[in-house]
């Protein structure tokens, strides 16, 4: 635990030895090349996804239920492995990471899980702090950083409550706090506003935009039409196993995104 440094810069160092690869700084932070993922042979989920995400970008990902948004994100943080194709993180193929390096990759990626992945019998504080604890930080540092993160998601002063008793939206915000508390290079947010009311959803979107302005790359998977309307960011639609760039002017969206309901 002593070997790893904290990632509070935006230069990912996911090698165990903490060696910094200076060439990586000039490459796109994330490149997906012909990525295939097949769970059931009759219905492949991703069928050749090509996607390049630059350092500091903010990308919306959308698509119908079961399209493969979560799968795409899981491939990036290596909870699933690609069947074909490559995923390059800072120019390095994550398929070739040793088992010992995967934790170091994950410390550079903050994930808001669609199903939260909280420990119900831990307190809010513990659930957020764990992301810093595994890095071996000092308790004092952890306390102040967790408090800050909870404040940003509107849960200040609720650190001592058990997560199990929180409302759906509150739990979702705990997950968001855990994802951003490490100040990672990349944040993957999977449907982070599904349980939030519209006002709070916009607030949280604002939070991610703020983080993005600080230099963090944000990939934001969502179904929420309002958010897509409000924020004129790059938009990727996953449909039929492929990625389609869908913000060639909002007009271009109509057909792919909507199956009939127009966006504006």
């Amino acid at each position, binding site marked *: *635990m002593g070997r790893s440094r904290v990632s509070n810069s935006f230069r990912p160092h996911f090698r165990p030895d903490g060696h910094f690869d200076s060439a990586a700084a000039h490459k796109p932070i994330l490149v997906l090349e012909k990525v295939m993922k097949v769970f059931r042979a009759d219905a492949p989920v991703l069928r050749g996804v090509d996607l390049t995400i630059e350092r500091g970008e903010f990308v919306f990902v959308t698509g119908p239920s079961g399209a493969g948004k979560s799968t795409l994100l899981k491939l990036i943080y290596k909870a699933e492995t690609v069947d074909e194709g490559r995923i390059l993180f800072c120019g390095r193929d994550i398929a070739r990471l040793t088992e010992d390096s995967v934790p170091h990759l994950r410390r550079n990626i903050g994930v808001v899980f669609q199903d939260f992945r909280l420990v119900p019998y831990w307190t809010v504080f513990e659930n957020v702090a764990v992301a810093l604890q595994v890095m071996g930080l000092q308790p004092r540092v952890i306390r102040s950083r967790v408090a800050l993160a909870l404040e940003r998601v509107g849960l200040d002063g609720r650190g001592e409550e058990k997560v199990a008793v929180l409302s759906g939206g509150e739990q979702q915000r705990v997950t968001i706090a855990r994802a951003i508390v490490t100040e990672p290079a990349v944040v993957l947010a999977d449907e982070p506003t599904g349980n939030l009311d519209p006002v709070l959803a916009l607030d949280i979107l604002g939070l991610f935009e703020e983080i993005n302005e600080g230099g963090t790359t944000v990939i934001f998977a969502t179904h929420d039409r309002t958010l897509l309307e409000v924020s004129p960011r790059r938009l990727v639609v996953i449909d039929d196993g492929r990625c389609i760039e869908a913000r060639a002017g909002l007009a271009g969206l109509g057909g792919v995104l909507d199956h009939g309901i127009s966006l504006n």
Partner: protein
Amino acid sequence: MFERALKGLRQQLGTQMMSVATVALALFCMAGALLMLENAGAMVRRWGAPVKVTVFLAEGATVEQVDSLRRALAGLPEVEEARYVSSAEARQALSTGGDQAVASAPVELFPATIELRLAPSAVTAERVASVALRVRRIPMVSEVETYRGFTERLRGLLVGGRAAAGVIALGVLLCVFAVVSNTVRMSLAARLREIEVLRLVGATRSYIRGPFLIEGAMLGGAGALVAVIMLGVVFMTLRTQFELSLGAMIGLRPVFLPWRVLASLVVGGSMLGALGSAAALRRGLQS
């Protein structure tokens, strides 16, 4: 790491205590078997080891005859020592147990003997039998007792006991392994959510596994310690009772296990626990 292990232990105190008790019970069985074996060994050493032959003398033998016989017997290559025991001495030897009846019995009841002690290197059934045969032919000898049957039975029992203890020990070690492994698997199962979260936020393998290995070692070690203490208490309690009855009857003074065996039980227990834990982790952290 140690702190997190303790936290885990506390979380499921009931289960953990249960498995310590089980490990203790199993190791208690094993240590008990070892103890019995140790004592049986002592018994065999006392009764069977320096093979003894008793030559009963006919009643009319004169002192000179007896002495020349004794010297002749002492000269045999297999015999290490030949000692004349008169009737009076025999009676006295038998009555040292405090038995009034023996002490006051007429001296003629106890025939004079020559006790032979054979060289341990010569102790084979045939050698003893041949000595007995040769001696029995001497006219002034009434009978020769080689205690062969008894000694052999005793050795047989000891061999059987050793085999049984070996089987028990194997079973017990397996049991300890399984119990600890199982308990750790429970701990794992109860904290699967936690472990998954740890993994997802980038905890290293050792960070995740460390506390469970410590937990396993502590379970095994604690179980062994409890077993040793239990055995000690039982031994203390029963020693006097045993010495006064069955022990006196079969001439056995109970001994406890040596310190080194006890220490290696505890150390072995905790190592086995850690191993069991590692096995559980190997299986439990797959998914």
